[in-house]
């Protein structure tokens, strides 16, 4: 029995978020072999096309790669893609098409789930722009000063929790989290502007992304402190 153990989560590896088992690259229709480009549905034979491995969440939903997204546009795009790919609209299609729609619809859902939440979206965006697979990664480095601040805040929270109760503790945490979230949204605008200007390679962008990373990281620590308060009450 010694060689059978429970799987352990692989901590050392970055976790893949983007699926990579697409069978077809996305330029020729799998059915009629005519050119399809980036179309979801083959213009010649009207068969749905599988997303190629190069498709990111933004392109899957047909949205520009931006940090700030209009939620109404996002939902509209999601619904449109769902109409195209949801397996329930393909119940009478061939098995092959059903398996494509299953894969595509799963990705559409994952893309929407990720981009809908601004903080998840920001993590994804950073990885995407930097060309690395992204995933909220708790181990990302925080400066030791930032960590100290968080530790102090945690102590303060605990004493508030015991002396004045959860509401007071939550309120105190909010006074730190709210400004950080405002800063994060501010970063969104700044970075989107840089992306829109041609200055993509520039140092400025890379620095801005690092700052955003750190803010996101800090926020996720603070959110955990907040979550513990909520769980306690």
């Amino acid at each position, binding site marked *: 029995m010694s060689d059978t153990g*429970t799987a*352990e989560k692989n901590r050392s590896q970055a976790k893949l978020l983007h699926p990579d088992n697409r069978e077809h690259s996305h330029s020729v229709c799998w059915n009629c072999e005519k050119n399809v480009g980036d179309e979801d549905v083959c213009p010649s034979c009207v068969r749905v096309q599988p997303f190629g491995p190069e498709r990111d969440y933004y392109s899957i939903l047909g949205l520009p790669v931006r940090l700030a997204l209009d939620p109404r546009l996002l939902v509209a795009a999601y619904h449109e893609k769902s*109409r195209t790919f949801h397996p329930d609209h393909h119940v009478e299609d061939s098995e092959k098409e059903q398996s494509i729609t299953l894969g595509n619809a799963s990705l559409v859902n994952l893309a929407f789930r990720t981009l809908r939440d601004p903080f998840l979206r920001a993590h994804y965006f950073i990885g995407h722009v930097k060309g690395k697979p992204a995933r909220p990664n708790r181990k990302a480095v925080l400066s030791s000063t930032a960590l100290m601040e968080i530790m102090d805040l945690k102590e303060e929270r605990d004493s508030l929790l015991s002396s004045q109760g959860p509401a007071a503790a939550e309120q105190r945490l909010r006074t730190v989290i709210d400004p950080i979230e405002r800063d994060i949204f501010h970063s969104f605008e700044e970075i989107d502007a840089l992306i829109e200007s041609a200055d993509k390679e520039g140092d400025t962008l890379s620095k801005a992304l690092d700052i955003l990373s750190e803010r996101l990281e800090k926020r996720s620590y603070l959110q955990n402190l907040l979550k513990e308060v909520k769980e306690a009450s």
Partner: protein
Amino acid sequence: MNRIVVGIDLGTTHSLVAYRREDGQVEVIPDREGRLLLPSVVALSKDGVRVGWSARERINDPETTVIYAAKRLMGRSFAETESERRSLTYPVVDHKGSPAVPDPSRNRFLTPPEIGALVLRDLKTRAEEFLSQEVSEAVITVPAYFNDAQRQATKDAGAIAGLKVLRIINEPTAAALAYGLGSGKDGLFAIFDLGGGTFDFSLLDIRKGIFEVRATSGDTHLGGEDFDRAIVSAWLEENPKLASLAERSEVRDLLRKEAERAKIALSLKPEVEVAIPALGFRTSLTRSRMNALVEPFVDRTLSCVRAALSDGGTAPADVDGVILVGGSTRFLRFKEAVAAFFGKPLFDSVDPDLVVAEGAAVQADILSGRRKDLLLLDVTPLSLGIETIGGVTSTLIPRNTTIPAQAKELFTTYVDGQTNVDIHVLQGEREMAKDNRSLARFTLSGVPPLPAGTPRIEVTFQIDANGILEVTAREQTTGTMSNVVIQPSYGLDKDDVRSLLKEAFSHAQEDFATRLLVDAKTEAQTVLNATERALEKVGSDILPDADREAIRNQMKSLRTAMEGTDGRKVRDETQALDRLTQPLAERLMNQSLSNALSGMALSKEGGSHA
């Protein structure tokens, strides 16, 4: 002729079937007498099996086993149904780990899926007669909080009844489909569904024909029947004499029915008189007293609501309207509490008894391939993950994720040179694996023997639009793969369903040994239940400790015998237990008789308690 897929609401107390007409209207199909509801009741007697209204009429016939609320047993193991069984008045025995109702006249045990199948078959026949064509496909609804095993058991019920179940959908979602379609309004809607046995809550975004479920939550043990029980308990507490009469299950039934009647009357008037002359019981129940009794249940529903809102990332104020579904939402206290919580208009104009079936018919229509203007985006109700080292659950797909869904994660080995990896698939919200439901286990072998932490094992979860989960594990360097399509740990396998299909309506074979076993187990279970109840009731004044000990021991031997297949042994052990409890039974009988005779006194003491 057009292929018709019907929608079925298989309820705890009532079931219905609906379909979408050629003209686009959804219609609930009536029976020959024009009734829309079918009581989810099955009656087993020597002269046959009855379903529905005629089964319900048999409720007080001592020769008949009347099965109701079987939905509460659906997809659960015998052990898991303990608290349910205590409140049911028909015998439920352990049959290969599953709860089952003995049907001695036909020499068989009926499992919950088979009982459900009897109801479904009745609805199928009703639909076929009405539509003058064969009906072989259906969408069936279940409470949102049903787990995988419960859904699978419901599907099995369909298969046994000869129905291909194209989709299982959640009751509140179905209600919203029917409602949203009827109103033509877009927005974010909360659906509050409180039925006889279950509470479901869902948050649904409706936009231009797309119904996106944002979150669901609920409680499979909260409904109108709990309120009835709460009323009965209050009566018993106030009337100790009534309590001892209520040891008899017929008395309990009577009290429960009276409690339900009073509860329903209270939604029309502020106070009701209750009188059961046979028991010499008379009292009155006011709305405020009733409200106090259900207040803990109100709190429980609202805490589910809060959980779903927070999962869906919304506040009560974001909700555009609240849709009330289920018979128990006629209860005024709940209407009031829900209205206060959301501060929004309540929609209860749609007939709450019919909407679930109507919504199922809408989804049935979509799945028949006829409608592309509507689409339901549903979610998985419970989180799915695998067990990692230390017995901890690692979630791959969190609850309320829209389906179809896929998730991949990398895992590695824990021991140097480990060549096999155990993948244990779990469902539930708890941190520790042992607290969650085990869905499947499989082994990935052929992992190259490397130092711990080096192999890269990719685990993929794929849930299709039917909510069926497929788990694949792949070692990335060698490409070794292993996978499993989740068959729930409870439920029938394909062969079981097939053989049940064959058997279901042909005559069970005359097998003396089985028959003896069925009879013996039924008898044994009845004696055990009665003994258990008696032991709870009597103190050492009536029953000396040594006698109690002896009875306990004999109960143990009987239970052991019941696990086996020897009917004779079960019968002998039952008789032995009977002999031991005989003196006790006599003493109790005397007590209960004298109580019954002093019924007049009881009614005086039990006066009004507003």
